[in-house]
C-alpha cells in the first residue's frame, strides 16, 4: 500500500492542525509551537521529504566532478585507489528514482496483480496451473504484507 503517501499524509495533517487546533489556542507561545510544527510538516510534505533523489544527484555530481581531477592530483597510493573505486562505483550505480516515479511504478504492478488474479479465476478449476499459481500468488501477498507491516506498526495489535 502506498496511499496516502507520507507527503499526502503530512500535508493533510498540517491542514487539519491549522483548521481545527490552531484556532482553539490562545496562548501565544503555544500557538507559535504549533505554527512551527505545521511549517515543518509542510516542508517535509514537499521535496524535502524525498531526500533520496537529492542525495543521489549530489553524490553523482561530486563523483563526476572529482573523476576529472583524480589524474591531475597526487594522492597517497592507498587513498588514490580508494578514491578511484568510490568514484567508479558511484558513477556506475543506477540512478535512484524519485518517490513519485516509484509510486507510479508500484501502482502499475499492483494493477497488474489485480489483472492476473482476474485471469487466474477464468482458468477452469481443474486446470493444473490454477492451484499452482494461486499458491504462488498467496505467498507473494504474504511477503508484500509482511514488508508493509515492517513500516506500518501503529496498529499492529489491532
Amino acid at each position, binding site marked *: 500500500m502506498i496511499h496516502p503517501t507520507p507527503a499526502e*499524509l503530512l500535508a*493533510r*495533517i498540517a*491542514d487539519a492542525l491549522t*483548521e481545527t487546533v490552531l484556532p482553539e489556542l490562545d496562548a501565544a507561545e503555544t500557538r507559535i509551537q504549533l505554527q512551527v510544527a505545521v511549517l515543518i510538516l509542510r516542508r517535509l510534505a514537499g521535496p524535502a521529504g524525498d531526500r533520496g533523489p537529492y542525495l543521489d544527484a549530489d553524490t553523482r555530481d561530486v563523483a563526476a566532478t572529482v573523476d576529472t581531477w583524480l589524474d591531475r592530483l597526487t594522492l597517497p597510493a592507498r587513498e588514490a585507489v580508494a578514491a578511484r573505486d568510490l568514484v567508479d562505483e558511484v558513477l556506475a550505480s543506477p540512478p535512484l528514482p524519485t518517490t513519485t516515479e516509484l509510486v507510479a511504478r508500484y501502482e502499475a504492478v499492483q494493477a497488474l*496483480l489485480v489483472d492476473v488474479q482476474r485471469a487466474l479465476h477464468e482458468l477452469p478449476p481443474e486446470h493444473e496451473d490454477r492451484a499452482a499459481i494461486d499458491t504462488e500468488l498467496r505467498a507473494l501477498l*504474504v511477503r508484500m504484507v509482511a514488508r*508493509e507491516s515492517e513500516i506500518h506498526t501503529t*496498529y499492529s495489535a*489491532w
Partner: protein
Amino acid sequence: MTNADRPVPDADTAARFRAGLERWLHTQIEGARDIVVDNLEPISSVGGARRPWQFDVRYALEGEERGLRAVMLVKVPGGQLETVLDPEFAALRVLHAHGVPTARPLWIDPDGVACGDPCFFTEWVPGTASLDLMQRPVDDPQRRAVALGMADVAAALHTVDWESAGVDFLPIVTRETAALAQLDEWEDTFLRQRMEPLPVLVYAFAWLRDRVPVASRVAMVHGDFRFGNILYDESGVTAMLDWEMVHLGDPLEDLAWAHRTRWSLEQLLSIDEFIARYTSASGLAVDSGAFHWHRMFAEVKHTVISLTAARSFTDGRTTWMRHADRASMAAPFMARFLRATA
C-alpha cells in the same frame, strides 16, 4: 468543515445548538410550551459516524412541568462510514419496542434544522462505554457479567420477529443472500474508496466470494456489535449503542465482529462460553465453518472501513486526526486474514 466535525466543540457551537434545539423541539413535542434546553455538553466518544451530545430538556405540557435527559447524535460528514440516519432511527424504534436494550428513540431531524447537521435524539441511558473493563483483573466478576450480557443482547436482537414488525426500511435478504449482500456492499465500498488497486484486498474478496455461507436464519444485525459500543454499569449491560450499520443479515456476522482482536470478548470470556450462552438464550446454533467465514469477512470489512476513513482525511472531507493514518491498519488486518486462511 462543519461544527459536528470539530474534535473540540467551542462555547459558541454549544450556544447555537441550544438556541436551535429550543426552537426546533417546539415542532416535535406537540403542545409543549416554555421549552428550555440545559446542561448541553458533548459526550466523549471514539465512534466515527455520530458525534454525541447530552442535554436536559424541560417544558410545560397540559399544565405540568415535564423533563427528560436526552442524547443528540449528530451525523458526521466525511467519516469512516457512509451512513444515513433514517433506517437507524426506525430500527431503534422496532428494537426498543421489542425489548432489545437500546436507548429509547425520541425525535429525528434529517435535514439538520435544529443544529445545522442531520441528527436524531434518544433518551439518555445510564452506564459507561469505557474499555477499562478489559484491563481489570481476570477474576473481576463484572468482566464476565458484561460479556455474558452481550451474548444475551445478541440473542435478543437476533430473535426479534422483524417480519411481523414490518421492517420495510431495511433491504430484504434471504438466508442464501444474507452474507453475499454484505460482501457485495463492502466490495462496492472498497472499489469506490480505495486509493490504489490493493491486490491483497482483491484476493481476500475473491476468497470470501468462493465460500459464501448460507445463513441459518435472517435476523436484524447490528453491524458493529462489539465491546465499546455498549453501555454497562454494576447491573450489567444497559444499552447497545451505535446502530448506524444495522441491517438484515446473518446473525453470525455480529458474533464474529464481537471477537475481532482489538475488542475481542475473548479477553473477558472464552468464545465457547460466549456461544454457549448465546445459543442457550436464543435457541440459535452456531456453525463453526460459517463463523470462521464471518471472522475473515470481519477482517476485510474493518480494512475497508479504515480505507474509507483514510480516504476521507486525504480528500479533505474530514479533519479528524484519528482518520489520518487509518490506511496503515490494512497490513496487520490482511496479515491476519492470510494467516487464518492458509
